[in-house]
């Protein structure tokens, strides 16, 4: 079974802090994704990566950056956390570049910025 793990289930940070969210997948997937999930807004894509050291902006990249130094690990970085970044963050991965690749999601990290 594909397993996507996220470093924390719950996180509380202060405004202005630098925040790192870590995601690891164990199935040698090429693609990894970061979404945020907010009530009534669904899942919105922040960034994704289709290869090591490669990244593409999603729909809401402002205030975020990412790092993918190893194939299995994709980090989301909040350079200076703000209260409007309080949200559920979901990481996902998929195998390759074909159409119809299933995305496998981690359990999510609920971030509260005070």
């Amino acid at each position, binding site marked *: 079974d594909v397993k996507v793990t996220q470093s924390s289930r719950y996180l509380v940070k202060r405004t202005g802090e630098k925040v790192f969210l870590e995601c690891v997948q164990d199935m040698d997937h090429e693609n990894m994704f970061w979404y945020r999930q907010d009530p009534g807004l669904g899942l919105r894509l922040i960034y994704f990566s289709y290869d090591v050291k490669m990244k593409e902006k999603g729909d809401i990249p402002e205030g975020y950056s990412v790092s993918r130094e190893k194939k299995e690990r994709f980090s989301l970085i909040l350079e200076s956390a703000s209260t409007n970044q309080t949200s559920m963050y979901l990481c996902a991965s998929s195998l390759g570049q074909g159409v119809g690749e299933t995305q496998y*999601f981690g359990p999510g990290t609920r971030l509260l910025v005070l």
Partner: protein
Amino acid sequence: QQQVKQSPQSLIVQKGGISIINCAYENTAFDYFPWYQQFPGKGPALLIAIRPDVSEKKEGRFTISFNKSAKQFSLHIMDSQPGDSATYFCAASRPNQAGTALIFGKGTTLSVSS
């Protein structure tokens, strides 16, 4: 053009009834339409998916109906059960983009009453 519109936002169905969730899109270049199911405290998981060259796909009690000319697709859950209570997201695959990123609808919270 890059949106997927999902309705209703919430749905209450009696046990044994039919649950229907609808989605609409504008971009005719979308080439893959999955539905994801999310239980509380978990990440979304692929439920069923369809390509635009097929009008219907059935897997057990779950059916996707696809209307290419109307640019609409829907999820039907037959004989709905309390265990189907979850949030459902429709999605569409972004064409010509590395990493096969998805665009998600805003979600439908389904409650099946016993």
